[in-house]
């Protein structure tokens, strides 16, 4: 059992339902962990569909996100580009 910080204050995770989603994006892999109350009436739980692009359930009580950047930004040397290198 672990403690989760929520909009109701710290709660034991046994009182919550957890959902984790991963998305592969151009910049890297985005992993979202969302917690709702066990008896959450949110429509998303009935449909299994996110009710907004930026989260799964609008009634979530905790949401954390990790973006693992896979590669950064590159500046190509102008001369190298002209030479086709």
């Amino acid at each position, binding site marked *: 059992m672990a403690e989760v910080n929520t909009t109701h204050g710290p709660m034991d995770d046994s009182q919550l339902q957890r959902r984790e989603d991963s998305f592969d994006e151009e910049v890297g892999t985005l992993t979202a962990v969302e917690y709702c109350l066990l008896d959450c009436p949110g429509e998303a739980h009935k449909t299994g569909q996110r009710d907004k692009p930026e989260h799964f359930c609008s009634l979530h009580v905790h949401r954390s*996100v990790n973006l693992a950047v896979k590669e950064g930004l590159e500046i190509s040397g102008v001369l190298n580009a002209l030479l086709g290198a």
Partner: protein
Amino acid sequence: MANTQALCTSFKVELLNAIHALGTTVTRGATTADSFKAALYVATATLGAGTTAYSSTNEVSGTNYTAGGVDLTGSPDWVAPNSSGTTAFSTPTNSIVFTNVTLTTAFDAVLIYNSTQSNKAVCVLTFGSQTITAGNFTLTMPTNDSSTGLIRLA
């Protein structure tokens, strides 16, 4: 041996170390690395290649989020610039973490900027719109090498 036309690799590393001043507006007396920060912006902001400095316009706001964002941690903030092959590169030393925040307006960009040098912009990273609730938003940095480093001069 023949001469080869090229942008010298050492020059690229030295750019990252602010060794060269091709213009006349740069004066640096310090020998310590600059300090950098990261700020989050809402999906309606217009950050991009044309961004020159930090601005609070369209920055996110919410519980435990301070305007200006968070300091990059690590000593120094960036791994010492290095090169491999013909590519110079550097990456923030540590992950960038916005701790225990609640950001209910969707955001989709982070601006890394130089807080020592008049908040001048470094780079913008974009991702799918997110919200955070009583949680963390963490940017885990890529491997610091010539293929994946956060900033690479090829």
